Structure formats: C-alpha cells, structure tokens
C-alpha cells in the first residue's frame, strides 16, 4: 500500500491500541522485573481512553487529528512517565505539521522523526539509556532509510528495528525511570517502554498487511 486515508489511519491506530490493551499483562510482567510493575496497567488504560476517543469522533478530518486525539488522551489520562512520553510520541510528530489527509511513507517517517526529537527533549534520554527511545529511534532511522513507496513494507522495517532495539535494551543499565537505581542488576531484562513501542509498530504493520 502506498498510502492510507484518515479513516484507515484511525483504524490502524486503534489496532495499535488493541494490541497494547491485549498486552497489558505481558507489559506488566516486563515492568515487574526491573520497574514497579505498572507499565501494562498505565499503557492499556491510556490506550483504552485513546481508542474510545477515536471511536467517538466521526469528524476527524486530518491525519493530524488522529495523532492529536490519541496523544492528548494519553497525556491527560495516563499520568506517569509513560503518559508524557507516549503522549509525546503521538503529539510531538504533528506539532509543526501542515494538515494532511493522506498518510504515506514520507509523511510517516517525518512524523516519527519529529516524535523522537520531542521525546528526547522532554525526557532527556538518549540511545543506550534503556528507555523507549532505544526502540523508537531505531524505528525512526529505519523509516528514514526505507523505500517510501510502500507504507506496509516500511512499517515492517520500523517494527523490525524497534524489536531490535528492545533486544538491545537487555544489555543496558538504565539511566531513567524506576530501573535506574538497579544499576547492573537491570542487565538481562528488556525495557518496558521499548517493548510498548515494538508492540505498537508491530500492530500497525499487521493491520496494514491485512488491508492489502
């Protein structure tokens, strides 16, 4: 698929919401190892709100609206570190974006790159600090590099890169979040937020594949 319209974009994001909601227990397990065990609870709560808001709105005119609705719900309902960070994942990418009604590979890559920038500004985490940035930044890089003609394939690249990032977090000590005081003890365990990023990209990829 080369691009998708606003409604399909909305459905794609809803698919991501569903994937996170279905992963509630798993994410909580992951966060229990080296965090405080609530990441799945927080993320699924935020995604339920986001999904409900997307479903309630029949008048989403632009891609920007879809991302904004999602991000605002997360930011305001979730709280926690991930409320701001994942809120910014959706809000940061469209901050300076002209209204768009079609989402293609070019635009998606631009959005995610801008997201990464906002998140790093907000949270100060860099690659290697064992946060969701370790999944999102590689995804953004993969998007930039990818052939922009096929949104589905490109989404697959992003998901793969995110998954690689999750793997990489296992070898890191954490500089942010609850795990930071664990020092070397955090090694061997993946980051919860990075895992969420991976799940989101994988779900969007699966959704697009199903539409082919």
């Amino acid at each position, binding site marked *: 698929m080369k691009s998708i319209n606003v409604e399909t974009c909305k459905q794609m994001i809803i698919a991501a919401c569903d994937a996170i909601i279905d992963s509630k227990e798993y994410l*909580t397990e992951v966060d*229990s*190892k*080296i*965090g*405080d*065990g*609530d990441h799945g*609870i*927080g993320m699924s*709560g935020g995604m339920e709100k986001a999904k409900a808001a997307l479903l309630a709105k029949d008048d989403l005119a632009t891609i920007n609206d879809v991302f904004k609705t999602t991000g605002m719900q997360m*930011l*305001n*309902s*979730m*709280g*926690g*570190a*991930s*409320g*701001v*960070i994942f809120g910014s994942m959706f809000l940061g990418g469209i901050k300076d974006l002209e209204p768009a009604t079609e989402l293609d590979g070019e635009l998606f890559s631009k959005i995610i790159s801008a997201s990464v920038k906002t998140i790093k500004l*907000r*949270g*100060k985490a860099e690659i290697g600090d064992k946060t969701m940035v370790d999944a999102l930044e590689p995804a953004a890089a993969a998007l930039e590099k990818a052939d922009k003609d096929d949104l589905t394939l490109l989404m697959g690249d992003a998901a793969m890169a995110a998954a690689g990032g999750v793997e990489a977090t296992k070898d890191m*000590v*954490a*500089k*942010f*979040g*609850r*795990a*930071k*005081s*664990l*020092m070397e*003890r955090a090694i061997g365990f993946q980051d919860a937020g990075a895992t969420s990023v991976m799940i989101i990209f994988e779900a969007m990829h699966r959704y697009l594949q199903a539409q082919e």
Partner: protein
Amino acid sequence: MKKIINRPETFVKEMCNGIVSAHPEFEFIEKYKIIKKKNIDKNKVSLISGGGSGHEPAHAGFVGRGMLDAAVCGDVFASPSQIQVYQAIKETASDKGTLLIIKNYSGDMMNFKNAAYLAGEDGILVDYIKVDDDIAVQDSLYTVGRRGVAGTVLVHKIAGACAEQGKSLDEVKKVALKAAQNVRSIGFAFSSCTVPAKGTPTFDMGEMEMEYGVGIHGEPGIKREQIATADELALRMVSALLEDLKVDGSSEEEVALLVNGFGSTPLQELYLLNNAVTRELAKKNIKINRTFVGNYMTSIDMMGASVSIMKLDEELAELLSQKCDAPGFKVDG
C-alpha cells in the same frame, strides 16, 4: 490478592473519598483527583505535592495547617498527569504564588514541570523544587540524579512552616531547597508490594532475603542480601547517611530523624529500629533535635523501612518545631 478492596479500577477514587470523609476540612475534586484544603489562604504561598498513589499517608495526609495546601493523586505508582497538576495549581492559587514539591522521578518531574509551565502561561506565579534524598545509588555515570523518597516529608514540613509565616515564594523556595539539600534517606525491604491492578507481588523474595536500597514503588533495591538484624541495619544505614551528609559529630549540628515504615511493617518494629538508630547516632555524638517514627511514605504493603536524616541549622530547626496539623503529620510546637 488479599486486600480491603472492591475493584482495582475504582481503588484510588474510593480511597480518596475515604480520606475526605474522615477529614471534613478537606475537599476532593474527583475529576482531577485533587485533595485540597477547603479554605485556601490567599495570603500565604500555596504548597502542592503529590505523585502516584500507594504512598499513603503521602501525600493527602500531609495537607493541613503548616504543611501542604493540596495533594494531587495519580494512579497507583503513576505520577498524576499534567492536567491534574495544572488544575490543582489553579484551584489553590494564592496571591503569593505556588510552590510545587516534586520527588525526583521521570514521571513526576515531567508532569509537574509541564503543569507549572501551563499555569505560568495563565499568569499564575508558580515555581518548584525537586527532592532527591535517596542515597541508595551514588551519583554515577548511569543515573540522572537520585530518587526522591521519605525525606520529602520533612521538606513538606519545613516549607509548610515557612509558608505559614507569610513568607514570599522566593523565601519559601529557598528554605525548601535548603531542606531538600540537607536530607538523605536509605531503605530496605523484606517483601515487595502488591499493586492492586496487578494482584500479585512485583517480585518474590526468599524467606531469608532482603532488598537493600529500595525506592518506594516496590521496585527491587540495589542489592539482594541475607536479612540482617535491626542493629546491623541501623549501623549500616546511619553510617551511610552521615557519610553522605558529611556529618561526623564534631560540630554542634543537630539532626532530625525520620524512621519510616513502608506500609506493612508494624509500629513495634519501627520503634525497635528507632532504638537502634538512636543508639548509633548517640555513639557518634550526634544530637537529635526531633524524631518521627511511623508510616509516612509507604510503598503500598511492602515490609521494610527507611531512615532519613536531615542536618539542621537554626532556621531549619525552628521551622521544624512550628506547630503543624495534618492527618498524617502533627507537630505540637
């Protein structure tokens, strides 16, 4: 999971309602989970704290005369959102301005700072300080600053007393900062805790194991070790705290002592720990100005305790002794 509970989804809301029914001087703004004084004094700096729920009596229990004006309650172990904090700032705005007291966790820092920014845009005078008293992790390559834990309670107290005296926002901020810079904490746990929505303990521990250097969210500490006696724990914690504070008993300095339970450790054990801690301080010739023993900054139903020591100068000592009357913290002059 054995808890006095109806449903995890409504846990925080029901708890907040329970707090407000017990303390009719409070008001609960349910939409934003804010617990505030019914009557806000416009002629004193407003103080706001908060964070994730699960630390009761923190933070709502510290709302009261001579302490906080409002507490913003997040979900269990999740900072409140920026909108919640922003609304709290608006609801308690005073002519003298507002000070936010934030524990140094990513989530809290981001949400409270964003809220301050939003309120500032509205023309509200608001500033913040962060508390990072936990010495479990030495500042290092890896971390951006230490965690804020039980020492925060003493910062609330000091800032509250200063605000009560009608001081300006700058003055209150200055003394709150001084308090934050002079307090250190360290804690250990004999068990993890059970987040209601999760229903099982965050981590398991053997019958003879403890976690040393834990925070207040049921996360593991810096080290898993064999359990130790109260005397051993006291010696180790007091030594580490004093070293970090650079207090060696050679000067006339006094300290404030806070022996804090994590929720499921009974008062009898906290007093026993206090006995050991007090003896260690006496051995090192350090004078205790005032001692607090109890559950102040808990980690739901974690078994364990932390010790906080604040180095006092005359100003801090005087503010600490001011009358204060919050449900979870009372000083009678």
